[in-house]
């Protein structure tokens, strides 16, 4: 089922949680709502679920207005950050809950419920925990049970609010891959909220980046990473060196680094801010040749990459550079003079805020 939201606005007191948000979620896709905490992403999810109502705007399910449809009738599966499992019920009863509260006429028989619950528990690979209580489960297990419970009512949409936010790093990683595979199996329209860009990049078909109640950019993980639409997106997704300078005639000068800036073709220089990814800077030994002269300040090996900190003496600007790394050999030593060459950059006009 496709979901559309149109011109959503929501304020809490003086706080603008959502400011004119319009989005379309296609049938069967897995979308991440990504943004810093307090950006309104959870509010958006809760409005789609019907746990919150917008001040203005509309929510459409398959083209039909569902803005004020009660959460009970929306047919959404919602997974909470802190699981919200019913603590006094066994895992089995938790998963069965959505089926057992149905009006008698629509309620499946006892055997049918048991069969469906066990099928769902098998789907989340926790069939052996049916008789346990939530207190007796690990965080990762609880979240999988919460997902099975949400799926039991055969929702048209699956909404997940920071589903892995309360878990430790390794479990998170496992569950991410698992969620992706599960989605590929079920093909149910799914939206999940996260503040973790890595999680969004790894799991989602598309990412919606939200900042201060507004949509900053919508796109596939590749689009968002390779063509950030705003300084905010550039800063939020991946690491970036942020440099100020001036641009004119299609080129920008950022602390001595010269990078192409085709958007700035005018002749008089304009103040700009440029972003360069650490892996988009090359280092060349020696102090003669192309690029700008810098001094190596630190070298550290992080996994398969070599992180080199360099400083441009002129203007005293520090740069982070990331180089591919093979074997134990470090090509540069601390204190060595080298030359830095940017091979890709993104330049934005500077207006007070950035």
């Amino acid at each position, binding site marked *: 089922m496709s979901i559309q939201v149109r011109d959503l606005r929501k304020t809490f007191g003086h706080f603008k949680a959502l400011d004119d948000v319009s989005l379309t979620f296609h049938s069967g896709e897995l979308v991440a709502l990504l943004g810093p905490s307090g950006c309104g992403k959870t509010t958006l999810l809760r409005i789609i679920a019907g746990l919150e109502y917008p001040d203005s705007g509309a929510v459409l399910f398959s083209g039909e207005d569902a803005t004020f449809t009660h959460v009970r009738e929306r047919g959404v599966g919602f997974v909470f950050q802190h699981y*919200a499992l*019913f603590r006094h019920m066994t895992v089995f009863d938790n998963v069965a809950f959505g089926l057992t*509260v149905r009006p008698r006429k629509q309620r499946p028989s006892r055997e049918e419920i048991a069969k469906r619950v066990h099928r769902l528990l098998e789907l989340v690979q926790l069939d052996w925990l049916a008789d346990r*209580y939530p*207190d007796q489960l690990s965080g990762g297990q609880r979240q999988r049970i919460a997902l099975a419970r949400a799926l039991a009512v055969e929702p048209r949409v699956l909404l997940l609010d920071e589903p892995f936010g309360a878990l430790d790093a390794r479990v998170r990683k496992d569950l991410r891959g698992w969620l992706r595979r599960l989605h590929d199996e079920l093909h149910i329209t799914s939206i999940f909220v996260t503040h973790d860009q890595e999680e969004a990049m790894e799991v989602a078909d598309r990412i919606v980046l939200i900042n201060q109640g507004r949509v900053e950019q919508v796109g596939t993980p590749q689009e968002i990473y390779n063509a950030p639409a705003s300084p905010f997106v550039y800063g939020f997704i991946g690491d970036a060196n942020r440099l100020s300078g001036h641009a004119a005639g299609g080129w920008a000068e950022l602390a001595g680094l010269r990078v192409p800036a085709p958007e700035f073709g005018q002749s008089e220089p304009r103040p700009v801010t440029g972003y360069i990814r650490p892996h988009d800077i090359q280092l060349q030994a020696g102090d003669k040749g192309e690029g700008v002269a810098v001094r190596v300040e630190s070298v550290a090996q992080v996994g398969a990459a070599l992180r080199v900190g360099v400083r441009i003496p002129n203007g005293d600007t520090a740069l982070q550079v990331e180089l591919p790394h093979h074997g134990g050999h470090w090509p540069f030593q601390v204190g060595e003079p080298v030359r830095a060459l940017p091979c890709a950059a993104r330049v934005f006009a500077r207006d007070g805020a950035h």
Partner: protein
Amino acid sequence: MSGVMSSLSTPGNVVVSRRAVTEAAWLRGLLIALALAFLGVFLVVPLVLVFQEAFSKGWQAYLAALTEPDAWHAVKLTLIAAGLAVPLNVVFGVAAAWSLTKFHFRGKQVLITLIDLPFAVSPVIAGLIYVLVFGSRGWLGPWLEEHNLSIIYAVPGIVLATVFVTFPFVARELIPLMQEQGVSQEEAALTLGASGWQTFRRVTLPSIKWGLLYGIILCNARAMGEFGAVSVVSGHIRGKTNTLPLHVEILYNEYQFAAAFAVASMLALLAVVTLVAKSFLEFKHQRDRERAAHAAARQEVS
């Protein structure tokens, strides 16, 4: 009192461990001795004396004092007052706690303060309020008289006064508990298609049941033992508007000490039963928690 009540609502397991914060042995001994001496003088000795006095004229006199028609009527009236006040306050308390913790609205703080009012106000004043409202010279007095309804110096007044003084117990017990639990379980139930009633009965109620029972026990103890407020509205009509505490006072004022203490011993027994029930609930609650914790620990090991 709130300290005692909140002990059940605090979550998490109590971890017993050796603490760095401790005192010299003599000081600990002294403090413990002081506490015990205080308890002895102010609680145990009076309690023992109550029973001693009650039995001072022997078994027969004791039983006679309890089975005497006026005493028997007082017992019945006390049971009626508690039997009405407790269920009413369970409903009020749950409704108040529910609305205060699950919804956002203006004037929430005012409502919380109002719930505490009966704790803050002297019970005598509580009684007087009802006399002023329902008494023959009160606001509604003439109208009530016209319609041949009596509230003050009758059973309804006693029930009203009891409801007033016991109002905070259930709500006060539930509010912190429900606040801490938040609304996500209820929200989960709603997304799964449960109605409001189903959510309350199957999700909210089971998760507050220990706190609720605890509140009921305290509420009941106070309802049966209330003196001040009931005294003002009852009129002390023997065999008609006397509750147990009032009956004790009457007997005492008539120098029937043995009988007075015999009836008082019933109230004391009630207190003991209340304490035992309360401890039992705490014990069960604790055990449930520990069981869950043990099971979790076992699972982690395996």
